[in-house]
């Protein structure tokens, strides 16, 4: 029994979201609400307290983590991962169920929490350490080690607002990495920084895992999950869908749900009410023969298409996508109205059903896994819809330039470039 570090039983968390007009976030709304309650006492609490939409971010989740185990937590955006971590790190309370934790919990939901831009690197190490729950003596003891890990020795007495974003992240992660709780709860902190730094973070994380510490590790980065964890749980729409050895869990996640690979279909329940009049239908990836695919060949062009409905005419709407690597680095951004001619022709869109289709030429992407995020907005006016994790796909580089050497090539793009070699006379 005492072998269990974390026991989660029937955990549930309900959020009230509701349309904006129904929320009572300002005093005026609350007063109006109370006024309505007073003049219609017979309708009672039931009818008026209910119009708030309730969403279960987490429902009936139960699992156990043994001491020394590194458990992965995977799931799509909105599957309840962050809510789970927030409950385990006591930031928010569950609505139902309970959790029993044996050991001191350190949680890293982001790096650099509480960093103050005006303070120097040295000062921020102390401040951030204290916020993460370290004792002052502990910070003093580890100070040199933290500075060495962060590689910002020269700038340690410079305000961090003068740091480059890379230096800032390195320092922030360095403090967090030297936290020594019995149980560590980590969320996506590796999705930041350059590739070099991410490697270092992953290295540090696997050190932590090997020291026999209990770790709960949430990530969208499946290769990190596979590398750091033996076992994972998969969350789907707030429920525990599967607990399995990590390779199996990752497979399940990548092929999960009703979405076919290479296609993302939005159900009406997934579309926030603020999106109206924009209503996303589907995002698809097609190869040059028109088939829906989740792996594209880098040597062939492919198509990203977004299908959507406008329930009312819109002016200035642009629909487009962001392309990210699996590590979260942005590769490119493109919108359907980018070209002036397109802008002039389609800036006024009547209500109706649309397909915005984009042809990506061959020889752009390097090998690996990519994520498409969808954005529908009017510049400087309103963002109607955004899904940061709409679709994932693979790029196969068979036939790409440089394939005679088997080395993996760093970089998100792998264009076919024109080289010339000239023999110069001595």
């Amino acid at each position: 029994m005492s072998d269990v570090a974390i026991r989660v039983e029937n955990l549930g968390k309900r959020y009230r979201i509701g349309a904006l007009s129904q929320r009572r976030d300002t005093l005026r709304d609350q007063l109006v609400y109370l006024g309505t309650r007073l003049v219609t006492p017979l309708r009672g609490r039931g009818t008026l307290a209910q119009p708030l939409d309730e969403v279960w971010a987490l429902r009936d989740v139960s699992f156990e983590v043994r001491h020394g185990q590194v458990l992965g937590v995977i799931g799509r955006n909105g599957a309840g991962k962050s809510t789970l971590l927030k409950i385990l790190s006591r930031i928010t309370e569950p609505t139902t169920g309970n959790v029993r934790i044996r050991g001191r919990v350190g949680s890293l939901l982001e790096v650099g929490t509480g960093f103050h831009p005006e303070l120097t690197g040295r000062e921020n190490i102390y401040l951030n350490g204290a916020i993460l729950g370290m004792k002052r003596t502990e910070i003093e003891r580890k100070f040199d080690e933290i500075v060495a890990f962060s590689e910002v020795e020269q700038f340690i007495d410079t305000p961090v607002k003068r740091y480059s974003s890379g230096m800032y992240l390195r320092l922030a992660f360095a403090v967090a990495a030297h936290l020594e709780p019995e149980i560590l709860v980590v969320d996506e902190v590796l999705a930041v920084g350059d590739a070099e730094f991410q490697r270092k973070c992953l290295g540090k994380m696997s050190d932590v895992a090997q020291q026999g510490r209990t770790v709960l590790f949430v990530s969208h980065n499946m290769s990190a999950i596979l590398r750091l964890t033996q076992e994972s749980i998969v969350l789907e729409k707030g429920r525990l869908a599967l607990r399995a050895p990590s390779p199996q869990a990752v497979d399940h996640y990548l092929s999960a749900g009703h979405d076919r690979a290479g296609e993302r279909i939005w159900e009406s329940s997934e579309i926030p009410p603020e999106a109206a009049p924009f209503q996303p239908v589907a995002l698809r990836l097609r190869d040059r023969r028109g088939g829906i695919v989740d792996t594209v060949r880098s040597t062939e062009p492919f198509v990203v298409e977004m299908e959507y409905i406008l329930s009312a005419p819109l002016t200035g709407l642009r629909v487009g996508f962001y392309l990210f690597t699996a590590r979260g680095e942005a590769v490119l951004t493109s919108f359907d109205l980018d070209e002036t001619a397109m802008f002039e022709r389609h800036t006024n869109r009547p209500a109706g059903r649309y397909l915005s289709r984009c042809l990506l030429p061959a020889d752009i992407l390097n090998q690996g896994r990519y994520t498409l995020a969808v954005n529908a907005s009017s510049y400087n006016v309103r963002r109607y819809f955004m899904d940061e994790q709409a679709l994932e796909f693979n790029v196969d580089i068979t036939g790409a330039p440089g394939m005679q050497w088997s080395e993996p090539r760093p970089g998100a793009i792998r264009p076919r470039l024109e080289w010339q070699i000239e023999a110069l006379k001595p």
Partner: protein
Amino acid sequence: MVSESTVQKAELSVTDIRPSRGWVALHLRDLWKYRELIYFLIWRDVKVRYKQAALGVAWAVIQPVMTMVVFSVIFGELARLPTDGDIPYPVFSYVALLPWHLFANALQKSGISLVGNANLITKIYFPRLVIPVSAVVSGLVDFAIAFLVLLGLMAYYHLPLSWNMLWLPLLILLALATALAAGLWLSALNVQYRDVQHMIPFLTTVWMYASPVVYSSSLIPEGNWQVIYALNPMVGVIQGFRWALLGAQAPDASLAVSSAVVVLLLATGLFFFRRMERTFADIV
């Protein structure tokens, strides 16, 4: 909400997390456990406050001194408000402005403290009381600096110091407790209703005129009015300051009323704060 106990057998602290309902225990001991965090938050506040300000720490002095000058011209010279005995008006008002600014700044800072630290609240666990408490205490540094000016002012007017000064720490504590009590209510409400932060400056102004800052409390009619007046805890604090430093009339009865009000406000504020605390991270 959360209880912690050390299990001898496992030698690991056990934390139980479950939903809480209604009023919950205060767990003030947690504040002590997190005293280092309080210290660092105060330290951050003090360090950051005057960074990149050309005049730096001088602002801690400029604010009360300029207010004193304005009050001396308007209320002392033009309106000729009477002071207690023959105390010069500048000293008379400055002695009141010291605890007043301590209180008003503490109230303002603690009132918006939870929303201002939303990034911490949504990412890290610690007893949320840490935030308004450190916001209130961090004003003491400014107070100490402004206090030095008072000593200079008293020397200038040849006013003697008395042993009654030893009561000042208790009076300061009362001012901070008042600010914390109101700050607990306001900060918790501000999480849900941002109206509160617009209300605070107005509230502070009204409160100042309801306290004997620019005028002497002897202007208030004797009897019941004095008791009602003393319901404002800052009345006792400011009367106490004038008594301890300038030898004005002792605040005896009003101080008792003020203290009782503060204790009541603080106790209800703590329970209210703890009750609201569980949803801070969700709605801030």
